[in-house]
């Protein structure tokens, strides 16, 4: 029997309600990504891109439909199980969210330590990933001692640390200048491809989206294929 696809989003609906109005941001959205595949979702502000990512990451709940990550239906998981579920994901946000009291290396080790890895194993893995993002000389530096691009590279290393099946990235280059954005984008897609990790990126940056195998555009709560390229 074959293993389930890493990510399946099936007919997901999500509506935000306020006293004044109801805003259906996702209207039967569907998506399916295989192991090692990458996709980028673009769309106007407020179109529901981040909502989609939050739902997949178990940070928010669907109104209807299902999201399967590695065959596990996120919507059915209680809070306690959600913590364990989140350990199967890698997250990269527009803001790096590095813990300021931890060095770059320690930040990368965090998902592993949270997952119960031995600190020596975590240290070794962190060193490997810090090297992969080209920051070995800065491994002992604290976030405030790093540039914006370097911080985001640490965040990418951290997202990949615990061998996630799926990495979700929400505007990972949104805070970076063009040069850094290019470097970080290369690094994110390169490492994901190299390690066979399924990657879903939400972005406004069309050049970043163009690096994905599948470029999707979210409009009126529905995903449309905007571009496709063959895997390398």
């Amino acid at each position, binding site marked *: 029997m074959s293993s389930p696809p890493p990510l399946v989003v099936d007919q997901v609906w999500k509506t935000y309600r306020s006293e004044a109005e109801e805003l259906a941001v996702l209207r039967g959205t569907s998506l399916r990504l295989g192991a090692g595949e990458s996709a980028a979702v673009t769309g106007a502000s407020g179109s529901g891109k981040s909502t989609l990512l939050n739902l997949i990451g178990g940070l*928010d709940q669907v109104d209807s439909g299902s999201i399967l990550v590695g065959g596990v239906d996120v919507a059915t998981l209680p809070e306690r*199980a959600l*913590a364990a579920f989140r*350990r199967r994901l890698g*997250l990269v946000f527009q803001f790096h969210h590095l813990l300021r*009291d931890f060095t770059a290396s320690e930040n990368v080790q965090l998902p592993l330590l949270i997952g119960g890895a031995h600190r020596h194993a975590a240290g070794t893995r962190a060193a490997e990933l810090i090297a992969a993002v080209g920051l070995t000389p800065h491994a002992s530096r604290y976030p405030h001692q790093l540039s914006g691009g370097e911080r985001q590279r640490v965040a990418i290393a951290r997202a990949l640390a615990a061998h996630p099946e799926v990495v979700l990235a929400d505007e990972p280059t949104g805070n970076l200048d063009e040069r850094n954005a290019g470097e970080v984008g290369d690094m994110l897609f390169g490492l994901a491809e190299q390690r066979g990790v399924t990657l879903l990126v939400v972005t406004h940056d069309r050049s970043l989206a163009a690096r994905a195998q599948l470029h999707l555009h979210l409009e009126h709560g529905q995903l449309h294929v905007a571009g496709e390229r063959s895997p390398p």
Partner: protein
Amino acid sequence: MTAPAPTLAARGYAPGAPRRRELARLVLALAWRFLLRRRTVSGVRSGLRGAVLGIALSLVPLTVVMVVANGLIDGIVDRYLELGSYHAQVAIADSQLASGASVEVVAGFVAALPGVEVAIPERRGSTLLAAGGRRVVAELRAVPVDLPQTDRGFAAMVEVHGGSFDLTGNGVVLSAELARQLSVAVGDQLHLVAVPSNLIAPVAGDAELGAARLGGPPRLTAVRVQGVFSSGYQELDRRWAFVSLATAARALPAGRELIGIKVGDPHDPAALAAVVAEAQRLVGQLGRVRDWKVLEAASLRSFESSRALLLFVVAMIVVIATVNVASATVSVSLTRRQEVAYLKAMGLPPAAVFASLTLAGTLAGAAGAILGVAVGLAAAVNINEALALVERGVSWVAQLVAGAGQAAEPIALIDRSFYLESIPFTLPAEQVAVVAAATVALATLAAAIPALAAARLRPLAALARTA
């Protein structure tokens, strides 16, 4: 396409159940950094170090009060025990005075009782001391001349300022305060003016003759000052004048007789009770035997009440300081809201978030307790020097204010008449341990409330796109 990423299980991890030991280590690391760490992005210091300092600062006075109050009270009680009430006392009944029973003989029998170290025959009564134009009411205490040699406890508590504790011949040994009031020194002569104790009534502590009402013909006995002493507690000894029993036979015909009993450990209630019972059995109707806790019950209650009140007031400060831990933890969890959210988004269980923040509070309490108690003990050990230094400083300022041409009176912050001249250091180890433990417990409790809120934080609420 490359091969799919290996699962965590394949790598030896169990995603659903982090190893407890590793997680505990991570919780400790998080707590430690929440406690100590550095500036936020905006430069504001974030952490519980301020709370640690607050707790420490509040524990300093508490520790000083505990140690000094204990030292003072223990020192005062010791002086009562060794010099005043003795460990136990046989009060000879008034009716026996006329019977010719010798208190010295009875004391000899009491001294032979098991558990009794020393039995001291004594006669006490009020008298007037007259020297030159001055007259002062005193409490005359007639004791054996070899008392300092036979009673080590007595000798240990008496500091002779001039001459010696020599009661031979017509010698009298005066308290330093009596000597000051009479303006006499070693070698000077004075007169004991003996009157029945029920006919002399000092008014509001005024010791002058003019404030006393006299009755009956006074009996004058000339004595010579052979020593001036101090017990270190003026409130106790300010009216004491010691003479020999032989002198008292002439000068104090109507004094009350008693036998002071000293035992090995006056704080051993069972041993003391046994001695009291034995002594009572021995003296029968001749007198009434009571231990020091009964004899000094009122004073002890007063001391304990004062100590409890002091501790209560200072403990309130500690409680307030500990509550600061709650606000500091709230501050930490707010300034680190996004970090906490991201930790949860990475799969850190809510229980671990709660544990790390609560543990940070515990560490803050423990660090504050250790620091505060250490500084407090150091201050308490040097309280006499510290007090003297402060008094010198205040006096210097007073002199400065008075101006160069005028001499300002030296300022004493506490009246030595009512306190020990030198405050002894007594470490109330149990109390200190209880206070430190209570501080840590309170700090933990105070941190637990905001920690619970942080544990319940929904990651999405804090992971906004903007920092």
